[in-house]
């Protein structure tokens, strides 16, 4: 990696002292100004404001009086919120496990590295480009009770009980269908990143293991995966956070959003509905803060783990 300090020598070409100061402080500040403006304006301020709102009344999207931790006591006494919190967590864990395992399998297949593998790599990444709204609609069609291809396939395979099975009449079955749609969408990015990680493990160590007669499986478990640990941690956390934030698939695939009878409500959807359908921004802000703290904790764990791994 090019170190920034070696770049210092070039300042000798700039003659005046003022020029030096400009080069060292003025120019970088100017270059960073637009980024900092965006971060402060559309990220920093909203975070502070959301935290502030969570301690105030906020009916009809108007900011009301300070009400202490009332919003928090309200959501933690709300069985629908607690159910959504638990549901989102289970959903995220299942999504992450499926995503990571499938991605690893795909990466190992593509690691073969022929020209065919290069084409397949592009195909694998393709679902990532499909808009989530579109993929949600398509999966909802594929899981249609009467004419869906999923039921047809299951019945053809001998599972007669899926004849006309209505996936979206039941919370659990809806979640299964949504999980499949979300995993289909999140695997590409993770699989391609894992492929890059696997490629980077090739070299002397792996060669030595092979010479010593390690099997394909032993090479993977004992050598390659441990070498990839920092990357695996990052990818695990990234997919956890994506899964926790799932919104589009839930909004599109469930009718009414979060239904039937609240059985598919997840954190992001519930927060959004609370703010813009129930129009209570105080309670919604409190939900957002809880999500934020949860994800911040996950990110902190990631920073810690990846430091230990490096």
């Amino acid at each position, binding site marked *: 990696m090019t170190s920034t300090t070696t*770049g210092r020598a*070039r300042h000798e070409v700039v003659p005046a002292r003022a020029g030096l100061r400009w080069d060292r402080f003025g120019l970088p500040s100017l270059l960073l100004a637009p980024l900092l403006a965006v971060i402060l304006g*559309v990220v920093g301020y909203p975070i502070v404001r*959301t935290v502030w709102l969570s301690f105030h009344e906020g009916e009809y999207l108007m900011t009301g009086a300070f009400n202490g931790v009332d919003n928090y006591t309200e959501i933690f006494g709300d069985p629908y919120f607690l159910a959504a919190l638990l549901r989102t967590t289970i959903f995220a864990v299942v999504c992450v496990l499926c995503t990571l395992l499938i991605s690893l*399998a795909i990466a190992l297949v593509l690691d073969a590295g022929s020209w065919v593998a290069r084409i397949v790599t592009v195909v694998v990444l393709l679902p990532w480009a499909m*808009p989530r709204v579109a993929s949600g609609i398509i999966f909802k069609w594929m899981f249609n009770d009467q004419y869906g291809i999923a039921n*047809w396939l299951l019945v053809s395979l001998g599972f007669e009980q899926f004849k006309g099975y209505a996936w979206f009449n039941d919370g659990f079955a809806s979640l299964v269908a949504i999980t499949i749609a979300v995993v289909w969408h999140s695997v590409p990015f993770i699989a391609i990143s894992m492929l890059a990680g696997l490629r980077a493990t090739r070299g002397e160590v792996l060669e030595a293991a092979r010479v010593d007669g390690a099997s394909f499986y032993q090479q993977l478990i004992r050598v390659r995966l441990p070498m990839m640990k920092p990357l695996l941690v990052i990818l695990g956390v990234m997919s956890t956070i994506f899964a926790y934030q799932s919104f589009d698939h839930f909004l599109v695939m469930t009718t009414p959003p979060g239904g039937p009878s609240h059985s598919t409500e997840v954190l992001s959807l519930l927060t959004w509905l609370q703010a813009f359908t129930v129009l209570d921004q105080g309670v*919604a802000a409190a939900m*957002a803060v809880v999500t934020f703290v949860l994800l911040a904790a996950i990110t902190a764990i990631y920073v810690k783990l990846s430091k230990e791994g490096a």
Partner: protein
Amino acid sequence: MTRKLIVYPAMVVICLVALFPFFWMIITSLKPDTEIFTVTPQFIPHEPILSRYTALFSGAIPRQFLNSLLVAGATTIITGLIALLAGYALARFNVPMKRYLLIVILSIQMLPQTVLVIPLFTVLRTTDLLGTYQGLVLSHLALTVGLATYMLRSFFMDIPVSLEESAMVDGASRMKAVRLVVFPLVWPGLAASSIYGFITSWNELMFSATYMQQSSRETLPVALQQFFSSYYSDWGGVMAASVIFTIPVVVFFLLVQKRLMQGMVAGAVKG
């Protein structure tokens, strides 16, 4: 040899699973209703029709398409500019508190959108930007600038400083050195962060659905989601609209996929 016996069939399965939803979406949009609503699915339409597309094109879709293109285009260009400047600064200068700035930039990526959606609504309402292109672009910047900057920074760091130095020793100003020597080399990175910005903005639903209720400036994700909830049984029409919505991102993606993969790989391996 035995590995090939596993690898190639596996590749076929992977391609099937990855591509089938695309295939099924296109096929369904081309089938007349009588062929869509069959218990045994028809994989090839017997009498393909284009009437769903012509119907959509005489409706609001062209306008919504343009709206989305405008928002995603503006987001991409502004993100690219901001990330180019900041990425260069973070790669080449000893900015004070750089470590923390980098952590902040990366954590933006981890933020739940729900934390931003309520205050941004209030901000856009008070500045009268609710339902405008500018307002939506502004909110999309929050989602794109972090990773784009990080990606471009890693591309800048791969370009040896000595290239700039020798140009400057030869009498070029820093601006000239950067313009003539560095930018031509960093262009793959710009392509990668651009496609990332475009896809993010084009596909984004939560901000769009909240801020763009006014129908004339509605973007495609919002339109599609509403179309879907109101014409629930018109599967052919919904699929055709989804195809129109999907084509631009897929085309853009295929054009720059090589650069994009380099960018993602750089981001993943260097972390």
